[in-house]
């Protein structure tokens, strides 16, 4: 990530509501034990037909959209399954930001943890961007500035917000686990108090499993 404070490039419209993570990354691409090879699986059934041939009419397959960096989508983008593969696949494909009126909750956390920018705009603003993208012969160019928290297309300028924590995670790439491990003493003290009050919660997985053996 060269300059994390700005993202600019082609934005492809995907005017569908509730575009779920099963569609973003279908099951056959979830069988790995690493994160490799997920660009191929991105939106697979929309991009390819039953014989694996690219569908020429799908927006991402049009030559002008070869360098797509952003998606403009309907509400509740990324709903459904918790599979983080959806986020990894978007990034491996080259998507740096998704613009939508709302996002699935688990997808949202997954995106923040991977520094995939999610820009939430009002439904009418997103519809305006989709209309602008569909009306133009050329692919729509959008720029997003994280210093001023604004998004610009040729016809629209819109401010957006991001929780301060998420903005910092995006800009600085925090080591979340390292940060939480700095609380290790508090975690262990908490656990000791918690288990003293509710001893039936201590080692609950191990105790329950061993009882069955």
């Amino acid at each position, binding site marked *: 990530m060269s300059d994390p404070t700005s993202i600019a490039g082609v934005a492809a419209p995907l005017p*569908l*509501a*509730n575009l*779920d993570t*099963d*569609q973003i990354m*279908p*099951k056959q691409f*979830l*069988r*790995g*034990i*690493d*994160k490799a090879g997920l660009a191929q699986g991105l939106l697979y*059934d929309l991009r390819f037909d*039953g014989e694996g041939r690219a569908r020429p009419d799908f927006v991402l397959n049009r030559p002008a959209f070869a360098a797509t960096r952003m998606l403009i989508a*309907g*509400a*509740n983008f990324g*709903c*459904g*399954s*918790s*599979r*983080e593969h959806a986020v990894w696949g978007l990034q491996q494909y080259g998507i740096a930001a998704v613009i939508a009126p*709302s996002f*699935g*909750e*688990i997808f949202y*956390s*997954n995106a923040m*943890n*991977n520094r995939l920018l999610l820009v939430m705009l009002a*439904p009418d603003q*997103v*519809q305006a961007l989709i209309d602008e993208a569909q009306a133009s012969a050329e692919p729509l160019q959008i720029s997003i500035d994280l210093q001023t928290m604004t998004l610009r297309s040729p016809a629209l300028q819109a401010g957006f917000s991001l*929780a*301060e*924590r998420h903005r910092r995670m995006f800009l600085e790439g925090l080591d*979340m*686990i390292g940060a*939480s*491990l700095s609380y290790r003493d*508090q*975690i262990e003290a*908490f656990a000791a108090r*918690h288990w003293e009050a*509710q*001893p*039936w*919660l*201590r*080692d*609950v*997985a*191990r*105790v*329950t*499993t061993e*009882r069955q053996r």
Partner: protein
Amino acid sequence: MTKPKTLYRKLVESHTVATLDAQNVLLFCDLHLMNEYTSPQAFAGLHEQGRGVLVPGQNVAVVSHIIPTHPVKFRVIADPPSALQASNLKLNCDRHAIPLFDTNDALQGIEHVVSPELGMIRPGMVVICGDSHTTTYGALGALGFGIGTSEVEHVLATQTLVYRLAQDMRIQVDGRLPPGTTAKDLILMIISRIGAQGARGYVVEFCGTAISALSVEARFTLCNMAVEAGARGALIAPDATSIDYVLERATDITGAWREQALAAWVELRSDAHAVFDIEHRFDAGEVVPYVTWGTSPDQAVPITGHVPDPAAQAEGVARQSAEQALRYTGLTAGAPLEGLAIQHVFIGSCTNARIEDLRAVAEIVRGRRVAPSVRAMVVPGSGRVKAQAEAEGIADLLLAAGFEWRQPGCSMCLAMNDDVLAPGVRCASTTNRNFEGRQGRGAITHLMSPAMAAAAAITGHLTDVRHLEALT
């Protein structure tokens, strides 16, 4: 006087190790469940950083999603990448002393069926899993929610999560579910009314006389599917029904612990004047058997209803999505749902593969046969459910009627194993998601209750189970 609190706030506060900022806390997690496909990269990340598992005894893993369900005694995962996921899970669990229910373990099954039936889920817990249907555990008064793989790694290393607070929603359901309807019909009705993002950002507490009357297994179904309305969690305050269920299975909670636990669990309810950010009310008496017609769980109507007309929606994304759903499902606006021919029936999943679900199926199937045009599969939720159904004669009854009786797993709910539908096949399914391609590319899913799926298996088409007697 202290400010009245919701059950959700009490659960968060009782698990807060530290407040990080206005929206986020460091939340202690009592139980972390893992599966073979959302955990490998988390373990790899942990190993890359040279980190260990902080509290192994609060973690457990189950091979559930990729496992084949063919009715053979010893299961072999034929697909090499899937076999590697299973063996890799075993390596990771062995390395970190994490208990595992492996492929040929008699207690293996769907993670959300296995953990409560073994008594692992207790009221007042925080339970997380790299699987969105972790909301299921709200049925026992435990805060459960799904997480991604980065968070799986975070929990392994710290037994905590950086948790973004949700808002409070209450859904009150009073009255009585009419004969022929179930918790599945109730939740499909609720989702169809509030929408696929109607509970997005909220933890939902279900209450009311209709909820109190539900069995624990029916409550699992309800809380399981709350995530299909976008909910970040679902809760039902513990009562005698759920506490009996837990104590029967959590046999380590006896003597002084039992008294201590009962005293703690009494507190697990929203205070009398607790304020919810939003409240909905429904009348259980209005519930009828529901089926989905589209490709989102909120696209559901009563079986007596018709496919809605997308043109009735305002222009824009909503209408385009409804039109796309009809293109995919091959249905036309105004067409009745009842009588729609199906080729496949799938009874299974963390939503509806418990013993009560299978009993409901057996009730409908008794004395009848699967239609010749239909392939009907039953995939029990766990080894224990399977054994119980066999002991009760349910398996024999279903086999004699023409059903396949298979080994436990997630199976055709998400079709990650080899239980995949062919393009164009229409399926009556007891699962939770009718997304495009969910059960196989080009396959069409209609969500419904186990009794409704059983009725469809008998007649070969979507059927109002309340009228089955007159039809067969």
